[in-house]
């Protein structure tokens, strides 16, 4: 067994520490060491986006990040999207818009879309499709996902304006 190292990070706004081997990906660490199983393994080589988390606000495929790399950084997972018992606009819009079927890709989409809308709540359909091209969905054909993200963006823009 390889030697483990201590990593100090902030996850969903809380300071967390864990130990991991050099060969463990962030995906593996989040799921196995920290116990946050919301991000999913779909392919383990960065091609499906089911493992997406935010690293210092940017969406990453956590299967392509090593656990040791996140020392001192901030991570947001799907478990940290709802705030204080309230759904985020994205979560509410996904539910109302039936933008999920099996749900395995949903955490990855919501996390990635949040990063997009935080920066650009008025993103167009084309911009949204482009930014979400790294998240694969096999069930929905994307239609309702895109509509949900657009609606959430509109709501976020309105909230920001008011």
């Amino acid at each position, binding site marked *: 067994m390889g030697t483990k190292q201590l990593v100090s990070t902030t996850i969903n706004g809380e300071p967390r520490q864990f130990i991991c081997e050099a060969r463990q990906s962030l995906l593996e660490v989040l799921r196995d060491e920290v116990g946050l199983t919301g991000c999913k393994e779909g392919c383990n080589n960065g091609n499906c986006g089911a493992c997406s988390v935010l690293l210092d606000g940017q969406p990453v495929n956590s299967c392509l990040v090593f656990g040791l790399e996140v020392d001192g950084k901030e991570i947001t997972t799907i*478990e940290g999207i709802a705030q204080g018992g309230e*759904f985020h606009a994205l979560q509410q819009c996904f539910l109302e818009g039936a933008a999920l079927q099996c749900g395995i890709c949903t955490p990855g989409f919501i996390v990635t879309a949040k990063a997009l809308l935080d920066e650009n709540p008025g993103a167009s359909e084309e911009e949204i*499709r482009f930014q979400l091209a790294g998240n694969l969905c096999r069930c929905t054909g994307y239609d309702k996902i895109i509509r949900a993200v657009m609606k959430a963006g509109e709501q976020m823009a309105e909230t920001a304006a008011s």
Partner: protein
Amino acid sequence: MTQEIKQEYRVLGTRPIRHDGADKVTGKAIYTADVKPQSMASGFILRNPHAHARIKSIDTSAAEAMEGVLSVMTAADLPDVTDKVADLGEGTVNLSYLSHNILARDKALYRGHAVAAVAAINVHIAEEAANAIKVEYEPLESVTWVMDAMKDDAPLLHDDVFTKSGGEQSEQPSNVSVHLNFQQGDVQKGFEEADVVVEREFKMATVHQGYIEPHAVLADWNQDGRIKVWASTQGAFTCRQQTAEVLQVPLSHVTVVPCEIGGGFGGKIAIYLEPVAAVLSRKAGRPVQIVMRRNDVFEATGPTPGAFIRVKLGATKDGKLTAGEAWLAYESGAYPGGMLGPGCMCVFSCYDIPNALVDGYEVCLNKPHIKAYRAPGATQAAFACESVIDELANELGISILELQQKNAAKEGTRRVDGPVYPRVGFVECLEAAASSDHWNTPLEGENRGRGLASGFWFGCGLKSSVVASVNSDGTVNLTEGSTDIGGTRTSIAMQMAEVLGLESDDINPRVVDTDNIGYTDVTGGSRTTFATGMAAYEAGRDLQRQMTVRAADLWECKPEDIQITAGVFSANGNQANFKELATELFKAGEPLVGRATVAPECSTNGFGTHIVDVEVDTDTGKVTILRYTVIQDAGKAVHPSYVEGQLQGGAVQGIGWALNEEYFFDGCGEMRNASFLDYRMPTAYDLPMIDTIIVEAANPDHPYGVRGVGETPIVPPPAAIANAIHSAIGVRMEELPMSPPRLWKAIQQNQNGG
């Protein structure tokens, strides 16, 4: 069965938020790989790298000696299973083939075929140890194209597989395991009567369901012989049956917990991992988790068949089809048992053709054993038939829509395999297409074209059980066994809510394991909203019967005097809705528990028509989908959003099948694109919105008229897109996928007059 079909419903047709939605958008929903008991060990499977090989020896000693390794197994640890065929409800499985597929015996029949497995304290050590196992292979000649595998001199996969034809079998072993033949009328005469005849040949590559969640299992073999399995499965009961049979343990010793499942589409009905994890667990004395690697999902699960199909159709100059002939060769992969039957039955299923002949062959070859992908075998058949229909229409100078309308299957039409259709909705789908905004909006621009194609899938009934326990506040806990892959907890709950006069939120649906509900067949075959929904309706009726008897005491009248209208009970000047009566009855007397089991034995017969506009880049062969409309008969759309979701999802899978997806094999018969990077499925950026039009031609075999919808949407897209490409640039594609290199080449040949 009571028919309750009406124009207006209270709950059906509304769009409540799904009951498991909160868990799914917050990461709380538990999928199989999320179940991680403290004592869990991790398993890894060693797989054969050759397309075809004899296994001469396996030496596991290096793995067993490695620190951190808890158990090792090979096929020697599995009992011999006879050639017994088990009925999985949704198709049968030969248990010997199943067991040999799970772990190879003396031959490995495809690259990726499992040969050994290791459980260790973590998956990295398990992988290292598995790779330390020494396997001596003798590579054999391999074959990976169906037409090559049919030749007399093709490498033979099994010396105990013979061609079965009409219940007889050939004398010599063969890769061809089945020959089917259907005839109706007199095709020769039919073609003589035709004014126009078109005949074409088509080739289709192997394609995978592409579910985002890999196969996963956690197995715990207790010291008392009881085995608990958590699985990503479309059917806990069929998983249990297969696992018990392969391990040769009593069925009652196995419990399967269906976790939330990340897609199945037909690929998660047969088992791959459960017996391996179970045996590793028995040997290690700890629960063992195995999650398949993505490349193993491609190489070693159940893609859907590649095929070669020839279709010939003849019509009079008035556009009446007079004869149809089809010759089909379908791959079945490494073992017999595939999708030829439905392919043959579906190829002409949309039309009233008085004279037809269908001849089909199922062929073993060195690929993983094929499995269902939504409407199995139908997409391939429709690609061929609908392309020829389009050409026929062009020759006749009419639109394909008009040709389809002139010959559409309807109630009373006889299919080539024999049965006559009951009330079906194909004519209505075509009418909806004809009046749709899409069809009536002119398409302008260079290299742009519009295509249309239709498709059919049977949709089945099979068995479901539910239990409905009434709470003291009049809400209902609905226990059922149908894994929820697409929102069916809610569509099932809505049918109970409708009959009881409740809201969707008043029903609390739970999907439970095999110990906690009666037998329920798989979530697949377009059956779940239809059959388990029917069971929920019947359980609601059961509750009403019980409450009627109890209310009669309460209201001092006879049970026969009590009327139930829209869920409200009334008699003798008294009136109470479900909740009022239930809370009253809770105060004294037995708890209210309703139950129902169903086994509807009918097809729900789902027809659909797709319209697509494309633009072809003639410099690169790339096809852009500009606009797409799916029209389908749902009988009654219980939750329209989830019906739309099935239509959109199936159509997009079909778009991927049409334009990019294929198993790419090299000269050694090995798959070179076993990753999501190179097995190119559609992304959000590849597509426009997918419009849907739901037709509701009520199904006479369901109380609310529901038809299954899940599978039909994957049938028309490749043909619709091929027809659109032809309309755009005059090139008729005869091979799937119509990927840029292929289309570009065809464009060049067309331009050079080839």
